[in-house]
């Protein structure tokens, strides 16, 4: 195993790191250092931007390359593993405690189809929503969420506003599958949406990665978030979603 680098040594490596000019062991240690040091991350970003300005922009991309890229693009996202719908065994009152609203939707891995006033969403990190979707089995998502809730390995994360008035509940499994199972968030206008964020890395300097757009009035939602998740947050954004949060969290919570 490589020797552990000191803080000074790590700082000295930031310039070479930004130019991909370090060994694999050094890169791993700098990666970990950047996860916990926002100033260092900002400095590396500046170095990379500077280096990028040195790159000649006047060449032409080779003919035919875009066509090759386009041919390899996936038409549909990979499937999110959701078990087939089980016969309803839970008492109606128990199910209604878990589910606020359910509707027919798309159950492909990252596809969502909103039908009627009720919403079941299957999201993938980054919110790949396929509006053309396929027939959904909303009970499958609800069943999966219920199963996850009973899994002893599942983390139950409570997201709340600063005043405690608003909250949401997330069930998160070790394999990265998660479910928004409850919320009391106020419905938004049609041109706005709630967006779910997985907070990655060091809890003190977590980086928000989009886990999906929830719509103006969230219901039960399945999502996937892989990596060192420190917590979750929900923000209010424009209807199309955003790459990074543009507003403070409406509700937020940390993994226990």
């Amino acid at each position: 195993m490589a020797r552990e680098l000191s803080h000074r040594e790590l700082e000295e490596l930031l310039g070479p790191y930004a130019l991909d000019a370090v060994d694999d062991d050094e890169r791993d240690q700098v990666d970990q250092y950047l996860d916990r040091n926002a100033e260092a991350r900002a400095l590396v970003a500046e170095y990379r931007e500077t280096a990028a300005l040195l790159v000649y922009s006047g060449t032409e991309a080779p003919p035919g390359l875009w066509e090759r890229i386009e041919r390899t693009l996936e038409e549909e996202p990979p499937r999110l593993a959701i078990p087939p719908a089980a016969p309803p065994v839970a008492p109606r009152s128990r199910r209604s405690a878990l589910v606020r609203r359910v509707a027919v939707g798309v159950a492909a891995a990252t596809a969502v189809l909103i039908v009627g006033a009720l919403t079941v969403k299957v999201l993938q990190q980054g919110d790949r929503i396929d509006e053309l979707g396929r027939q959904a089995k909303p009970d499958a998502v609800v069943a999966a969420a219920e199963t996850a809730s009973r899994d002893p390995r599942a983390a139950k994360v409570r997201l709340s506003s600063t005043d405690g008035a608003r909250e949401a509940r997330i069930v998160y499994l070790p394999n990265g599958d998660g479910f928004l199972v409850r919320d009391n968030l106020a419905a938004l206008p049609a041109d706005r949406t709630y967006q779910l964020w997985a907070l990655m890395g060091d809890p003190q300097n977590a980086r928000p990665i989009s886990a999906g757009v929830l719509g103006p009035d969230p219901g039960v939602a399945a999502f996937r978030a892989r990596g060192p998740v420190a917590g979750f947050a929900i923000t209010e954004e424009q209807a199309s979603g955003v790459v990074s949060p543009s507003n403070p969290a409406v509700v937020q919570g940390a993994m226990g």
Partner: protein
Amino acid sequence: MKTGELRVASDAQLVVAIGRFRHDALSEVYHRHAAAAFGLARRIVGDRALAEEVVQEVFLRLWNAPDRFDASRGSLRTYLLTQAHGRSVDVVRAEASRRAREERDARMTSEAGYDLEREVWDLTQAEQVRGALERLSEGERSAIELAYFGGRTYREVALLLDEPEGTVKSRIRSGLGRLRDALIDSGIAGPWRES
């Protein structure tokens, strides 16, 4: 967002559209940035076919994981060039490339000097970047050229230049800092700039 609107959309808006399976959004990003990515990859790997593969990987990675682009950390162009550079360096460090690079190194060390300016051709920025480069010492320019465009680690650069590793690390750091300051002074660098 309509197709016609994509041409005037910001890079961040295009990435959101890519997140919604818009092929035309990825096409617009390709139109804006693929040439630079290809030029950088080709400079590093020295082979057209390999450079095309690098560019293909970079754009497929953007398609499959658009959420990995963090607009708060820099521009999309920088993100794509960083991806292209990293992948190109991986290719270069493979054993099969090393022999060709050693032969190229032998030719380079016989030349009079290193020409970092040769890499800078953008007509709208050439003068400012050349001016910024003039602020660097020869040692700083050499270290950055060999590391960034040569795909070498700082240890390899130190061996090539017959300099201590600490000196090379320091020159890379100070050189990038001076370039950054000079480019800010000239107005072509600053807070993250979207296209």
